[in-house]
């Protein structure tokens, strides 16, 4: 089936009807397994029991980046192909991504207090995530600035693209200052984390990805319904005149 067939909002609603419960069920199972494995995983020799925050904090961090990327891809879809579902997908990604980004910051702060002795530090990675959160808020604010959803979608798409091109520049310049944050622990092919902690992390990350998918699809469905309600209201008002 060519991609254009998915552009039909009605077909999307049909797919979403069974895909949302499926993703939600996968999220529930994977999170139950991953988080309970994480709960029973050994405590870290330096961080003690606080290391368990990692099983939710790290997936939030990964997903806030993934959601931003999804938003940029959707923005391309809006500007280049004028795909009718692309701006809906972009808005949903911005909403869920902003919440995940916020949760990443909050769980990080709660972890940092006992471990580093401070809720916040102006360290490169923390600062980058904070800037990412600001970019999300900018996109969401832009969505609210227009009353016509189509124009709002195109404006938000341009901002998302400009922001996406800038993310590496911001990341690079923020890294210019050095800090106390540890190096990346996971890279392709090798891992500095012991398997007893790595597997729960990967399973709960998969669970959060499924949760994101469910929330994203549900947000898209809600946005489509909201637009439909808006159109019907306008038609009704035009009729009564």
């Amino acid at each position, binding site marked *: 089936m060519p991609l254009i067939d998915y552009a039909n909002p009605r077909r999307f609603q049909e797919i979403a009807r069974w895909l949302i419960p499926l993703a939600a069920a996968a999220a529930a199972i994977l999170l139950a397994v991953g988080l309970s494995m994480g709960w029973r995983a050994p405590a870290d020799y330096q961080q003690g029991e606080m290391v368990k925050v990692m099983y939710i904090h790290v997936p939030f961090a990964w997903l806030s980046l993934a959601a931003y990327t999804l938003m940029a891809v959707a923005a391309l879809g809006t500007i280049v192909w004028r795909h009718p579902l692309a701006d809906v997908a972009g808005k949903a990604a911005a909403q869920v991504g902003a919440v995940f980004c916020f949760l990443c910051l909050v769980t990080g702060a709660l972890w940092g207090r006992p471990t580093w002795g401070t809720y916040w530090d102006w360290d490169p990675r923390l600062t980058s995530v904070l800037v990412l959160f600001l970019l999300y808020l900018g996109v969401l*604010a832009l969505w609210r600035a227009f009353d016509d959803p189509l124009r709002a979608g195109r404006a938000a798409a341009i901002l998302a693209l400009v922001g996406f091109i800038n993310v590496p520049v911001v990341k*690079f310049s923020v890294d210019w200052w050095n800090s106390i944050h540890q190096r990346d622990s996971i890279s392709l092919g090798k891992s500095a984390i012991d398997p007893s902690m790595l597997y729960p992390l990967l399973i709960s990350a998969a669970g959060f990805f499924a949760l994101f998918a469910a929330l994203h699809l549900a947000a898209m469905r809600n946005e489509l319904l909201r637009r439909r309600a808006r159109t019907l209201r306008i038609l009704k008002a035009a009729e009564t005149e």
Partner: protein
Amino acid sequence: MSALSAIVMRDVKLALRAGGGAGVGVIFFLALVTLVPFAVGPDMPLLTRIGPAMLWIGALLASLLGLDRIFAADHEDGSLDQLMLSSAPLETIAAAKGLAHWLASGLPLVIVTPVLGLMLGIEPKALLAVSLTLLAGTPGLTFLGLVAAALAAAMPRGGLFSAVLVLPLSIPLLIFGVVSTNAAIAGEGFGAPFRFLCAISLFFLVLGPAAAAMALRHVRD
């Protein structure tokens, strides 16, 4: 080329004459720098130390003023439609309007920086460094703001909006501006961060007009 210079001349003239508001940025910059000693106390050594950073913050905020009017004024009186109908590429038109805005609002900030720096007790060498980094950085700020200006033109209420959109993206310019200034004051390694500042500024010089033209085409009705 003649279209470009014609737009630049027109916009600079409009900004400098009555109702243009080109001088407001400089007054705002002066007022901000005047506020700093009230906030931190009239402690000259402290002001000398934080002065370059304060000048950068002040110039950054002042350069956001009037940003939302770059396209909005032309959008309201219809001249933007005439410009878009002309044979000149929209990217060039956007770049010309950005250049005019920088000449009328950005360059004056750089010119008054040494005077304001003296009030904060900044050394001559540091003063030269701040002015130089602002000269390299403010065009980047203006052209980054061009994107927000184009989006604001289509908005019912642009206003402060463009500032909110631009501030997080202006962080790289601020970082390298202040880092290279401090490097110059410490007398070590001014070249590398200053070149990065110029590179980022040039990057926005390219990205800004292209994205602004895209915004004008797609978002306005």
